[in-house]
């Protein structure tokens, strides 16, 4: 399973800006729902989160300390 950004459908107003900004085509509209396709080409650029005007979209980071 490839981890993808997450979307809160309740906050999404279907403006489509995330679909427009994503360079790898990972975000698509299925019916009336913005959905993610699990693809490795998504390199977590976080532009979809940055452009989302309603805060519906999140690209979260797990923060870990490297073992030495």
């Amino acid at each position, binding site marked *: 399973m490839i*981890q993808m950004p997450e979307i809160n459908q309740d906050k999404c107003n279907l403006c489509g*800006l995330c679909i*427009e*900004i994503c360079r790898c085509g990972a975000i698509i509209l299925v019916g009336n729902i913005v959905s993610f396709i699990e693809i490795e080409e*998504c*390199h*977590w650029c*976080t*532009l979809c*989160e*940055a*452009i989302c*005007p309603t*805060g519906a979209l*999140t*690209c*979260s*980071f*797990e*923060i*870990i*300390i*490297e*073992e030495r």
Partner: protein
Amino acid sequence: MAIDSNSLTVLSYFSGLSVAELEVIKQSFFEKTIQRGEMIFLEEEPADILFFLISGIVKLFKTSAQGKEQIISLARPYEVLNDISIFDNGPNPMSAQAMSTVTLYGIKKGRLEVILRQHPQVSSRIIQVLATRTRQLISLVEDLSFKHVIGRVAKILLEHTGDGAGPGQRLTQQEMAAMAGTAREVVARSLKAMEERGLIRLERHRIVISDKNALQEMINQEV
């Protein structure tokens, strides 16, 4: 393509104008379509046309002498892109690139000046728009010039680390910005700066802290 006066009403410059007034004003505009990746204007070049973004997304950014890009903002539909250079007669303070297929409405500076003379209320709207932007930029300058933001971001990282074994706590750049009391762009910049100094590594959906002590020092220096 004909200019749609409904789109003009949504532009903050022209809100409050009557339909009849907009019908006249729209004659001065032209539409332009730009493909993803194309440049709309370049930093340091003179500007003669004021552009409004009608659909799509535009990246406004500055490039440093070393060729590094600093995103100032991602413009959404109905934002004005280059008012500063149009009104102060100087060169563009930043570059603009289409991040998707983009539709712009453009108006030549000379035509805009005529509109401003005929509709003084547009001038007051413009002053309001410029003042709001100045306020945003002042808070950005504050965050960028006072070094403590990077220390605050370092502290947030250290306070939210997991051991990498189980699902640790997850944070978005937006959340880090809210915690640090700054803009998302400043967090992105701080993370990049830490990565360049070799303190962290940005992997796909993971921030790996490679030099915990250096981060700790960074926090101590700020206190």
